[in-house]
């Protein structure tokens, strides 16, 4: 085992050690919060969430560092042999922040589109009760099994056909950051999560229809729309939130593939290039320090949203909170 010095001076790959140190700092800080505030329940109720977030983030950083370092040593493929070019801390931060800004714009647009389509379709399917809406379920199943890159290929063909018909280039500039490029990337990114949200939401809402309180509401003669809104959707909101966050995870997971396909220089494309995968006729360079940083940035976005979603779930259904707190 290589000794890990607690600093960058004299170390061959400073970036990796930087992430290792950072993970330790985050974990120790989280532990500190626990030790200081655990005996003060009122304050703990407010800051405990920060400590858990810190543990998760520190864990992701440490685990990423371990996996990447191990892969660098054992791999005989494109992870073997780190690139000679290493970035200093400020260049690393600048690269990650710029990429994160670009990716956040795409993910935000993708989330809005995907959630609106998925949840909206599930709500309409349950509230309308039309036979023809069964086709939506089939369409969602077909979309769900489409690999993201195939969707991207078909979208690119669509762009070409639109250009042939209208003479107007709708695709944006390949490898650049412009609104058209971001729009298509967001569209491709949102398609599978939308199908996922729809399927999870429809399943949840259909299950909720069988509950006793829904039968009671129907027996009392309440209009169906009111039954759906008050007695099906509202109690199912925590599960719908869980489905939404899972779809966001799916979205962030396929971000590398979509950005790599469109050559959109966000977190995903930078990550694919940093782990040594290259475009045809280009040489790949494995950059472990950058790869760890990019994964950490994605994890930070995801874990923050997860934490917020959990708080939202507890607010929507306080029984979940009580269940988690009470000893089994």
């Amino acid at each position, binding site marked *: 085992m290589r000794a890990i010095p607690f600093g960058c001076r004299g170390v061959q790959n400073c970036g990796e050690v930087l992430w290792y140190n950072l993970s330790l700092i985050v974990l120790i800080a989280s532990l500190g919060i626990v030790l200081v505030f655990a005996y003060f329940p009122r304050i703990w109720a407010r800051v405990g969430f920060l400590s858990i977030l810190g543990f*998760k983030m520190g864990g992701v950083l440490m685990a990423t560092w371990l996996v990447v370092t191990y*892969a660098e040593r054992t791999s005989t493929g494109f992870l073997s042999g780190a690139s000679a070019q290493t970035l200093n801390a400020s260049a690393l931060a600048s690269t990650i922040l710029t990429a994160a800004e670009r990716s956040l714009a795409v993910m935000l647009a993708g989330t809005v589109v995907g959630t609106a389509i998925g949840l909206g379709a599930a709500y309409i399917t349950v509230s309308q009760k039309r036979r023809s809406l069964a086709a939506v379920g089939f369409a969602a199943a077909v979309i769900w*099994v489409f690999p993201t890159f195939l969707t991207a290929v078909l979208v690119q063909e669509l762009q070409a056909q639109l250009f042939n018909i209208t003479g107007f280039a709708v695709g944006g500039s390949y490898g650049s950051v412009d609104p058209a490029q971001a729009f298509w990337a967001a569209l491709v990114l949102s398609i599978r999560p939308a199908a996922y949200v729809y399927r999870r939401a429809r399943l949840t809402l259909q299950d909720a229809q069988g509950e006793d309180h829904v039968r009671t509401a129907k027996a009392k003669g309440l209009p169906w729309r009111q039954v759906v809104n008050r007695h099906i959707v509202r109690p199912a909101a925590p599960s719908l939130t869980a489905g939404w966050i899972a779809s966001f995870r799916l979205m962030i997971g*396929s971000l590398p593939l979509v950005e790599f396909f469109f050559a959109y220089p966000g977190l995903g494309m930078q990550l694919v290039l940093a*782990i040594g995968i290259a475009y045809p006729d280009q040489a790949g360079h494995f950059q472990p320090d950058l790869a760890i940083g990019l*994964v950490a940035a994605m994890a930070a976005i995801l*874990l923050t949203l997860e934490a917020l979603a959990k708080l939202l779930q507890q607010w929507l259904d306080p029984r979940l909170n009580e*269940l988690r707190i009470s000893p089994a």
Partner: protein
Amino acid sequence: MTWIRRRWRASVGVAGFGLLGALAALVAVGLAEPAKWWSTGIYAFGYVNGSKGPQLPPFGPLSNVDVWTVAPQNAGTHFYLLGSDPGGRDLLGLVAHATIPSLELVAIVVAARLVVGLLAGLAMGLGSRLVASISDGIGSWIIGFPYLALAIVVIEALAPRGKEFAFVVGMSIIGWRDIAVLVAETVERVRTQPFSIAADAMGTGGLRFFQLHVFPFLRPVLTIEIAFQASAVLVLLAELGYLQVFLGPVLDLRQVGDNTIPLITQLELGQLLALSRRYILYKQMGPVLVPAFAVVAMALAFELVGTALRGRSRFSR
């Protein structure tokens, strides 16, 4: 509404099993093809029925071609049902032979995800607060990674210990958490139900409680989740292949005419898609779309069968 739902589920089941049957028949036809059309032979050009001059591969679907090698020697006439790759090899034969190892891998990965997810989910849902926190924490660490990047890094790291082993671990490590969360949510939901509270008050606990009150609710959830997972693993395999991570050892590069055209030597669905980007640049869509749609059709069949099976469970009606 019940009869409509039943009819719909029956139709979904018929469609799913029908699709599986059609795919199995196509795979059987592909497997029965002589090796020279999909493995050992590389073809430089061919005379397609109805055309005046020779044509370079890839040949189109539903084409009957008089095929010639680089030598040039006539290899005979062959009917390309789904077209050929740039080496003139039959895509049906390639996909059929790639399907078997890919489905074996999918089955192992789904089983691994299910075992880990079920155990972790039960620990989160039924266990003590500490066990739940630990399971939740490990799960959170795993989901913090973008799934494709994690799979690639783990597969590359473990590849020296065996490519199959690396793929099983790399593809299992990212999917189990969904199952765990689903199981934990179901368990939590069951525990808040009046019948569950009553059973608890009457002293039903441990394995008996799980068997009587949790498992009947878990079974339909897991049945449909297996189908979802199978299709998700297939799609993941295709996406990894697109990003140059595949089960086979190497790609064989051969000179055909003036161009260097890469060809697949180790057959697996992910690997068939590994050269997609290059083929798209060459405007050769057949070798990309055929394996990709094979993955889509298989994944869709799993989804439909899973949905139909779920409909048969009395707890999901």
